[in-house]
């Protein structure tokens, strides 16, 4: 196959893959030195052998049971949502709006979002949203105005239990002053009474040492 420049460009692939004999290789390299068209095509193909190397070994595979669990959870939630929607619609049609049937359906629990602001001297602000899936408490955190902490410092989120214990629920990545995280804690929201974010001096130390950045009360569900 020849290009408008008259060169056999199929040999370019052979050169890239080091599959030509010495004479052919010299010939193609000579074209490349003087032909822009061939040189551009060569430049497009040159990175490809390294990519092939990247994909040589089979990648790690999580056991199939993990996939089954994730999908089963998705199906279960979708089914619950559909039943909730269908039966609530039926209740409306029957003129039985709300309380009795609604309670039996256990509709998707609401999300309660609260605004938070920084504890002096921190000027952070944002929202914290709480949801439950009955087995755990899901906390969605969005905070702005967070200063960069010196290494190895990190912002850490905590929940304060009704029994007085403090539980770390995760560390927050800050990009351009903003942290967004989806965190999970064991047990329903009623387990917890307070939410904190602290500026910990050392992310490797599990103890709570740093000052409080924001503080909020976990709403009742």
């Amino acid at each position, binding site marked *: 196959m020849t290009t408008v420049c008259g060169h056999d460009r199929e040999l370019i*692939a*052979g050169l890239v893959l080091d599959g030509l004999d010495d004479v052919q290789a010299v010939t193609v390299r000579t074209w490349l030195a003087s032909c822009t068209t061939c040189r551009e095509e060569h430049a497009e193909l040159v990175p*490809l052998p390294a990519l092939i190397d990247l994909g040589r070994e089979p*990648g*790690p595979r999580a056991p199939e049971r993990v996939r089954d669990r994730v999908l089963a959870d998705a199906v279960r939630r979708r089914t619950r949502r559909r039943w909730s929607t269908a039966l609530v619609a039926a209740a409306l049609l029957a003129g039985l709006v709300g309380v009795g049937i609604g309670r039996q359906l256990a509709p998707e629990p609401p999300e309660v979002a609260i605004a938070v602001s920084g504890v002096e001297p921190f000027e952070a602000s944002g929202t914290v949203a709480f949801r439950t899936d009955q087995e755990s408490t899901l906390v969605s955190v969005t905070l702005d105005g967070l200063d960069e902490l010196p290494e190895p410092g990190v912002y850490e989120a905590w929940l304060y239990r009704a029994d007085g214990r403090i539980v770390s629920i995760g560390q927050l990545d800050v990009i351009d002053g903003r942290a*967004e995280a989806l965190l999970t804690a064991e047990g329903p929201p009623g387990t917890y009474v307070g939410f904190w974010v602290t500026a910990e001096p050392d992310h490797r130390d599990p103890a709570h040492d740093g000052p409080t950045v924001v503080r909020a009360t976990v709403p009742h569900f």
Partner: protein
Amino acid sequence: MAGSAATDQASLLARAAGGDEHAVASLYDRFAGPLYGFGLQRLGDPELAEQLVQDVMTRVWRHAGRYDPSRGSVATWVFAIARTTAVDLHRRRQRLPRTTELEDTPSPVDELEDLLRAELVRAALDRLSPEHREVLELAHMRGLRQVDIARRLQLPLGTVKSRTYYALHAFRLACQELGVQR
């Protein structure tokens, strides 16, 4: 082409947010391998790596509606969740009698991106026809010259030359379509 791959992932996420379990499955198949590899590297324990995959993918689809494309790709969003989850799992393990330090390693986001890139390259190779895969394997992985490939496959040299050329271009196109960064 990389843009279309990014759009495809954002679209999957939107459908997952709407309860489409096929979209959830597609997202899982896209990210589970790199997440598992990341979990093995960071946590050094297959059970914890499994837990990481499950926790991350569950959070991804449950909170898919929160993804904001203006703040980065779907992969970046998933990797951020993975990093937080890995730290959580490590800290939970620290409270057990057997403790292992979470070693300081290069940025976990870089590790995950490398793992995902390798996964995408494998997907690109899988898209090739058997004939194209064969010549690339013989030419690059086995290091054979075209004249030797022709002899082995009992094909004319011209056929091997053409097939190699089109195989490389097909691989390049597949990489573009899958959003592989070179």
